[in-house]
């Protein structure tokens, strides 16, 4: 169904970013506008989700150029869910950063850039055109480049060098893949490509292009041999920025992989095996890396890598059940990873360090915060009935039914490694005897902040924790939703019809 308002989430983020630019040096005005606008954007996302959930796939043909000739925006239930999750984590990060980020950084335009980043994410989730997807990816990466370097500390610049290089390389590979795909199929519309690519006889070339896409998106989503930039850079910027990166930037790569490999390149045996091997090694290397680290944010960075493997595993198994597991995991992971990095920001403000060997005694001193933090940590591990449990259950069942016993073993191993890491983290940071740390001059501690800022840091964590609890305890709703998404992904004819069906005869 044609509905021009589906680009509203994108337009609204653009509007917010431009509005914020008029208040460049007035950081308090920026704080207020950001909080209000991020709440409105959550409202818009809920409206879009509701509309798509009730009415089916909505499309917009830009400039009334009918698909496959113009740029198409498509909101199917997968896109709408991702838009909603983006708006929620964007809201949490925006509110958190009003409390945690220093005025000096805010004066370099933190809030406008954050909104440009969110605009890019919303656009990437809504577009139905592969070159347009490239453009949204570029908007995302240029905004993230600014966010990762804002403040200009030595560690940030060093991390940014790796981050920028790998992302530029990924873009070049993505562009190469688009070039060859356009040369083969003569189209850029993803729904149209779905039919065109299936008819190409030179399957070898199709597989080459599929692997180019896999490498391009694989760098962005940090899968096994391509993830080294992530733990080297994600712990360097302020925690609020790490939160939006950890929660969403790798997931947009996973979204693109799922979209491409269910719609355009249906994995044959070779590609499936490749995905499964990559998934298993991603889980293993991320989990082992996390055990070794002592910096809390680096531990979380490696856990991102580890858990990306779960979603790729679902895609590799490629049955409706496994995709359901991957989608459920994606929904759970965006919320919980954003929350974890926000929590690391809170702990840094409480103690002035993130080295888990130096930290300690938080449970004794702050029992309420500790219980709050326990929920996302345990849902990350997947202790029943919290949110991580259900998704892994479906992934394991999906793998077991397909006879992928080795992969199931790796998924279990990954869960076990996560449990180990989180248990170590919990006992070191919360239960261990507190050590008196020397007070740092350049850190503004939590108790020194104004009450408004303290609340601004606590409330987002509470909101995200409640959502995590909802995903875990009311898993039935999420299962129904994931089931609908996975059946739409596995039978893309509805998507194709919604995009191309309204096509009028060309003059």
């Amino acid at each position, binding site marked *: 169904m044609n509905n021009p308002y589906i680009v509203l989430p994108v337009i609204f983020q653009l509007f917010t970013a431009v509005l914020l630019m008029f208040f460049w040096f007035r950081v308090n005005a920026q704080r207020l506008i950001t909080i209000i606008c991020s709440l409105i954007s959550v409202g818009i996302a809920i409206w879009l989700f509701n509309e798509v959930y009730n009415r089916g796939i909505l499309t917009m043909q830009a400039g009334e150029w009918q698909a496959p000739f113009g740029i198409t925006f498509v909101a199917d239930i997968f896109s709408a869910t991702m838009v909603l999750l983006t708006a929620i984590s964007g809201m949490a990060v925006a509110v958190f950063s009003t409390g945690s980020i220093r005025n000096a950084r805010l004066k370099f335009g933190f809030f406008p850039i954050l909104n440009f980043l969110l605009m890019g994410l919303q656009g990437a989730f809504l577009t139905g055109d592969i070159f347009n997807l490239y453009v949204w990816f570029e908007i995302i*990466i240029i905004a993230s480049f600014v966010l990762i370097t804002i403040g200009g500390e030595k560690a940030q610049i060093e991390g940014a060098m*790796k981050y920028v290089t790998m992302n530029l*390389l990924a873009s070049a590979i993505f562009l190469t893949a688009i070039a*060859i795909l*356009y040369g083969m199929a003569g189209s*850029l519309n993803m729904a149209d490509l779905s039919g065109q690519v299936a008819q190409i006889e030179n399957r070898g070339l199709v597989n080459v292009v599929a692997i180019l896409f896999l490498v391009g998106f694989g760098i962005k989503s940090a899968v096994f041999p391509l993830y080294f930039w992530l733990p080297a850079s994600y712990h360097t910027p302020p925690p609020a920025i790490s939160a939006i990166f950890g929660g969403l930037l790798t997931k947009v790569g996973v979204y693109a992989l799922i979209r491409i490999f269910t719609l355009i390149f249906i994995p044959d045996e070779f590609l499936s095996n490749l995905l499964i091997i990559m998934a298993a090694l991603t889980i293993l290397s991320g989990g082992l890396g996390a055990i070794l680290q002592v910096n809390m944010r*680096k531990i979380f960075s490696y856990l991102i890598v580890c858990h990306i493997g779960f979603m790729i595993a679902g895609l590799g198994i490629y049955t409706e059940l496994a995709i359901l597991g991957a989608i459920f995991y994606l929904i759970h992971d965006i919320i919980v990873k954003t929350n974890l990095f926000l929590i690391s920001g809170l702990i840094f403000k409480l103690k002035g360090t993130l080295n888990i060997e130096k930290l300690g005694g938080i449970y004794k001193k702050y029992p309420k915060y500790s219980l709050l933090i326990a929920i996302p940590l345990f849902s990350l591990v997947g202790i029943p009935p919290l949110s991580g449990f259900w998704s892994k259950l479906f992934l394991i069942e999906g793998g077991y039914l397909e006879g992928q016993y080795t992969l199931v073993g790796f998924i279990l191993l990954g869960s076990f490694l996560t449990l180990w890491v989180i248990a170590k983290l919990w006992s070191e940071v919360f239960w261990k005897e507190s050590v008196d740390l020397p007070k740092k001059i350049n850190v503004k501690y939590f108790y020194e902040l104004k009450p408004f800022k303290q609340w601004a840091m606590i409330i987002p964590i509470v909101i995200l924790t409640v959502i995590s609890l909802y995903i875990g305890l009311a898993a039935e709703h999420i299962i129904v939703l994931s089931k609908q998404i996975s059946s739409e992904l596995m039978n893309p004819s509805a998507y194709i019809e919604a995009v191309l069906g309204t096509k009028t005869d060309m003059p």
Partner: protein
Amino acid sequence: MELLLVMLIGLLYASGIYMMLRRSMVKLIIGLILLGNGANMLIFLLGRIVKGKPPIIDSASKMLTEIYADPVPQALILTAIVISFGLQSFAIILVKRAYKITATDDLDELNTTDEIYE
């Protein structure tokens, strides 16, 4: 013409990747620029090169019947050039800042963020 372009693209990709694998930051940027240009040329080549056939429909007919020069790759390249211009200028400024802060051009020196105890 196609053969020349194919050779040029191969050269751009090869030299881009070679430059990226060097240890100098400046060479890294040059490598990225070469790689980006190679990708742009590739889009141009794969849009099929047609000489002297503009995609203009004459008033007598309703659609193009003969072979024509596809305008889409050119629109794509234009977009890609503008984007890569922005990204590359950011990368150059970043390299300059990194050089100022770390006082080295050697990429292997930028490994403090990878160490477990910083």
